[in-house]
């Protein structure tokens, strides 16, 4: 297991985690689509040159190739920006990986507003919804470096394809090597009985924690849940939170249609209907700018979340 404290970027963590896995599993190979210097998969290439292939700017072919390679007993990890890793190769992932029963792990970097200066053309808000439609894919969006490093080998061990939604730049330090981090098991970060805030990914978990501190000043106790795994879905933790608080807000750095919020709402509608709201992107495209500007522009801020919580609690 890699020591996450040695890394200062998500991209270095995810590549190091895959390379660490490759050390003990000869079947692990890495494919990139001319973004190896962006994600740092060159580090994998240095250690395992014969197990790395740069497929060029041709994501669809890369995805179907990966399906073919998996059918010969290899386990490909493939990377592109999340927008291309979901939209440009979708039919290939659906048919040549999903439908064929092959196992391929897809790293989609720069999700949602973390695409920042690459702007609207590169800003995937729909990738979660797209991968939710491929029945055999696990989906994760870790909120810190430690959980990212720990979940990668668990995805491999699960023996199913996966989508790994991670920023490239910066890193959050939330968990320690001693914390329990399990694929499919959401982590309760703060205890609270008035309202549950279910957040996915580093941007939203940060916003949720900030809002929780502000709510505490108002005498409201919020339970923040880091839903790092979207599939398999941790129904038990979410149901318990809904049952015990009666109010749930789901926060995701993605579009509402088909996203995490609708996943949670759809589940609770059947098991424990409660008052709900969502912090997410509505019917809107991305735009260019620094993260601070984009957070304001899309309303991914603590004041917006606090306002939503207060309104929900007063209903």
């Amino acid at each position, binding site marked *: 297991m890699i020591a996450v404290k040695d890394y200062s970027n998500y991209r270095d963590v995810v590549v190091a985690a895959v390379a660490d896995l490759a050390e003990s599993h000869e079947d692990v190979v890495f494919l990139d689509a001319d973004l190896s210097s962006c994600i740092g998969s060159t580090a994998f290439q240095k250690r395992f040159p014969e197990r790395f292939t740069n497929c060029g700017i041709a994501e669809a072919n890369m995805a179907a190739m990966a399906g073919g390679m998996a059918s010969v007993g290899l386990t490909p990890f493939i990377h592109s920006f999340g927008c291309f890793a979901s939209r440009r190769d979708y039919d290939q992932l659906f048919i040549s990986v999903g439908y*064929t029963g092959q196992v391929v792990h897809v790293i989609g970097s720069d999700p949602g507003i973390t695409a920042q200066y690459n702007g609207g053309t590169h800003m995937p808000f729909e990738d979660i919804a797209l991968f939710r439609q491929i029945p055999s894919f696990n989906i994760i969006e870790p909120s810190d470096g430690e959980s990212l490093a720990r979940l990668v080998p668990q995805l491999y061990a699960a023996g199913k394809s996966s989508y790994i939604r991670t920023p490239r730049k910066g890193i959050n330090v939330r968990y320690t090597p001693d914390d329990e981090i399990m694929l499919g098991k959401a982590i309760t970060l703060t205890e609270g009985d008035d309202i549950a805030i279910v957040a996915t990914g580093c941007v939203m978990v940060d916003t949720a924690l900030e809002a929780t501190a502000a709510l505490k000043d108002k005498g409201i106790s919020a339970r923040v849940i880091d839903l790092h795994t979207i599939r398999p879905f941790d129904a038990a933790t979410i149901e318990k939170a809904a049952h015990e608080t009666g109010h749930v807000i789901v926060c995701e750095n993605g579009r509402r249609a088909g996203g995490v919020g609708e996943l949670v709402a759809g589940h609770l509608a059947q098991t424990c209907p409660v008052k709900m709201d969502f912090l997410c992107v509505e019917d809107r495209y991305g735009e260019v700018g620094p993260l601070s500007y984009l957070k304001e522009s899309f309303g991914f801020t603590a004041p917006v979340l606090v306002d939503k919580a207060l309104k929900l609690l007063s209903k």
Partner: protein
Amino acid sequence: MLDASTLQMLKKEALDARIKTIECISSFGSGHIGGSMSIMETLVYLYYVEMRIRPEEPDWEERDRLVLSKGHAGPALYAVLAKKGFFPLEWLGTLNKGGTKLPSHVDMTKTPGVDFTAGSLGQGISAAVGIALAQRIRGFKDSWTYAIVGDGESQEGEVWEAAEVAGAQKLDNLIAFTDLNKQQLDGYTDDIIPMYHLKERYETFGFDAYEVDGHDFNQVADAIASAKSVKGKPHMIILNTVKSFGYIPGEGVKGNHSMSINEETRKSAIDALVDREGGR
């Protein structure tokens, strides 16, 4: 050049596989007869002479693999696989029926001997490039990957993405074919997207390329033998074929991509084919 007895055996097996393909499609009532019949010589030659396969162990890792990228030609592959013993001949009568193991488009999760799923055109050749690369990474030095792509299918941009990578990676264990039968679902390729100069196109992508009569066993065999002797390049063999060749009611007919075959047409078509071939 094939010896006389091998050539005679291949012709006999191809005639029988064509009859079984017509029967298979007629058992359902309709299907992709045109593109199935045009690749029969290539399939029969590969499975009867060229490929290292174990019908009793279809998942043998070091086998040669074939990706039928033009996945709608499933019935032709099913006839050959059944004849080779991958599954019982009786299955050929179950095409497209509920719960069948023989769907219209080839499916590796359903049919023993089908090495990769295809049907969404363009993807099979990409998968074949991945398979050839994986054989190299895993050190399967005697393993070959074969792929059959349609000429209409080659309108998909993905085919050329796959060709780029095959050329760049110098995948000399990949022998691909293009079934140049000049017709696609809506009509003649010349009237829709002309598929000119395919041999030259592949050569510019770094391929060792050939163009042969796809209904002449000797030409197909010679091209494969030549391909296997050329190192450092992937191989493309353009098969000049007639769509629906051997299903005579479909030969030269527009709209022969998928045709209805009832009891009466099945019988008369098989009789006419056997007659043209000089008997069974």
